[in-house]
């Protein structure tokens, strides 16, 4: 325990002024201090990728970072994928291809895939599967997730 610090987290383009202990994880700050509960926690030790967010465009595990380390960075979460009522192509594609069941890992996969595709829109199938292997899903067997991300990549290139 130690004194709280006042920091500003920029989430999906909006500043959140919060007061957190230095040891508070970014994931907890996003969820409990900023109220964006779409980012889920699956293991809190950096393996499952459920808590993935984009930090200046890079996918990171928000359970492995302290909130104070994210000050001054642009943080994007699943809530920042849609533009108003217009869903992101990845979100539409996940629904269309039955790429989710319980939905708990889904925000992490969506954010991870967005990070991958925004960086490399023409990524090959093998490299895509390898990159998506960073996250765990316990329901789907992954086939539909890969299918959905591939279809969304096509759609994103088309737009």
């Amino acid at each position: 325990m130690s004194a709280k610090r006042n920091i500003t987290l920029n989430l999906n383009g909006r500043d959140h002024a919060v007061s957190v202990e230095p040891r508070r994880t970014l994931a907890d700050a996003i969820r409990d201090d900023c109220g964006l509960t779409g980012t889920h926690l699956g293991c809190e030790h950096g393996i499952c990728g459920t808590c993935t967010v984009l930090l200046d465009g890079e996918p990171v595990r928000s359970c492995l970072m302290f909130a104070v380390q994210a000050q001054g960075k642009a943080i994007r979460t699943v809530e920042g994928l849609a533009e108003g009522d217009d869903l992101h192509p990845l979100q539409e594609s996940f629904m269309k291809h039955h790429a989710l069941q319980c939905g708990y890992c889904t925000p992490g996969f969506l954010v991870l895939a967005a990070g991958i595709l925004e960086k490399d829109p023409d990524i090959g199938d093998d490299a895509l599967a390898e990159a998506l292997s960073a996250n765990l899903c316990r329901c789907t067997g992954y086939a539909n997730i890969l299918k959905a991300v591939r279809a969304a990549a096509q759609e994103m290139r088309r737009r």
Partner: protein
Amino acid sequence: MATEKTRVLGHAVERLEDPPLVTGRGRYAGDINFPHQLHMRILRSPHAHARIKAIDTSAAEALPGVFAVWTSEDIAELGPVDFRADRASEILKPYRQPVLAKGRVRYVGDPVAAVFADDAYLAEDAAELIVVEYEELPVITRADQDPGEFDTGFGTEAALLTHTFGEVDAAFAKAHKVIELDLLTGRHSGVPLETRGAIGRYDAARDVLELHGAAKVPHRNKDTLVGMLGLQPNQIHVHESHVGGGFGIRGELYPEDVLVLVAAKRLGRPVKWIEDRMEHLMCANQGREQRHLARVAVDETGRILAMDDEIFHDQGAYVRTHGSNVANRTMCMLTGLYDVPAFRAVAHFRLTNKTPCATYRAPGRFESTYVREQLVDAIAAELDLDRITVRRQNLIPEDAFPYVLAFDEPHVGNLEFDSGKYELLMDKALEAFGWDAAQEDLARRRAAGEMVGTGIGLFLEEGGRGPSDGAIISVDAKGGIEVVTGGASLGQGFETAMAQLCAEGLGVDYKKIRVVHGQTDRIPYGIGAHATRATVLTGGAVYQTALTLRAKALDMAAELLQTPAEALDIVDGVVQKRNDPAGPTMTLGDIAKRLAPGSKALGGRAPGLWAEDFFNPTETVFPYGVHLAQVRVDPGTGGITVERFMVAYDVGRAVNPAMVEGQLVGGCLQGLGGALYEEFAYDEDGQPLAVTFADYLLPTMGDAPAIECLITEDAPSPLNPLGMKSAGEGGINGVGAAIAGAVNDAIGIPGAVARLPITPQRLRTILRAAQQN
């Protein structure tokens, strides 16, 4: 009924559940908060077996922000976590788990004390300040070692269970050959991506205790809690929200669920508990760990004369909500799809100093299919017969249904298989896989030095067991439809399936239906979502209720449209004449208005456009399937690559084929985890060795083969009007069997794989031993 345009039964429509889930607006247990809530942290035992000599909580209590610290003395009046009402067994009651350990801890992770504090981080700090003095006791880590003492007068073999039929000893005496195997299934579990969570809240204004974060069996847990807490049924309600995967282990009643309720009431503040992953891997129900000494008697042609199995079932430290159910299901499903004239299974149901076990997806069936199919492979190898031929001649034939397994034990219920075309499905699967061509191809590859092979697992499933479930469907004045069920959603697409069934029965667009589940204050009874019941049982109730409501709507419409009800149809929520769709019509919303209380149109009718009905099936449905696997073994590392995997499954009638496929494919990969990677290992002191995802290996996308899926509807169930069977657990059932068979085939040593999971180290040991011989 609905038009073809909106008729969705049997169609792979998009799920109603998805929009909030893909936008981050779901509401899982961790997302539920109440003002002024306290956070609970459990201090857990670091020892597998020890006497608690003293607990000093003073330093923890002194920490600012800590509201209370409890040990078992603070809840002395509270009994152990009870069995579900329908599973009570007097002889197992002494083995139930106390909510907090009383004088003795029995596994690493056993709850010893609970801290309640303003903040979750602070609660964890405080738990570290509790000082417990332990005296370590001898540890039992295996069910096949000599039993010890659980407590004064109670041994660690809590029960010796048997299932028998036919003349077993006579069959073995006259057998052409007797084949014996010694097989182990490793300890693994569901491990959903969302850990457990429970939020207790006492609303003094209404005198209602609420449990949030529930799953799987909210109504049954409510019943158990009513008994444990001495409440009236209307003083407690259980609420399910989104659930991040269940797989049988989540949603059972655990000590933490009881604690948050007792604390919320006594401390006067809501209490939230969210399990961390390490706790989950030490404390949530595990399963599968059994040793089987199995024998089979055969004649010269490979026909099975009798099976005999002695099982050592590792129950872990306590008997949880299911009693001895997993051991019993293991035994009664052992003969599977085969016509076995005589059978005997004896299960030593034993306590050890490891995490307690209970049901994990296809409980007892993953284990028994592994054993049975290994026996059948061994028959083929021993008699030099083809694996498929041996299976073919032992399958229960099509004309034998309903096929009854009648056990000698009076307390063991008979199994009555409702329908099946087992050989047809096996042949369809073999053809779709290209089995014969694969054998030739693999023979060439083996000749070129590769270690490759195929395996097959035939499996029987069960589901839709009664006795009863109900539904309430109502139409509001604007035509909105609400389906209230006592079912539960664990991510399987429950809302979509129920909406599809309601749409079919009533004649409405499934997207306009709102489905309620897991809320004990909305419907008095509910079966939940377990044992692959939801679509058949709750879905059967929804379909039946939709038909009842349809009749009610048409009765009113007949009078208003001056047309006999049988000449009317409901299409997309609009009542129209069958022979004159363009003529006068009425919406269901209009009819609801006419049926409002006080309406002049009511006549003698009861007010409201709503209906409640029940589905009461007398028997269980038995779907079945085939798993086929092709693997390559790396002799250098012992690594196994699954080159191909197929599941073929007869579901009777698929409500939503994409969701059925999702269940099957997801189940297959989960099964591959248990066959190849996942294991809760313990050292000789009972210390768990897999308490992170670095040690407990869930399959990743990189590990996942492209799983081929063949869904058939060749044997609809005669037990419900739509012919539905169930799909939740078939995906995982025969995976261990098929993979073990494929590895044996690849390395050319029948029966070599005697233990799951088949890790590279274990396979290397097998290969080295073979080389030395």
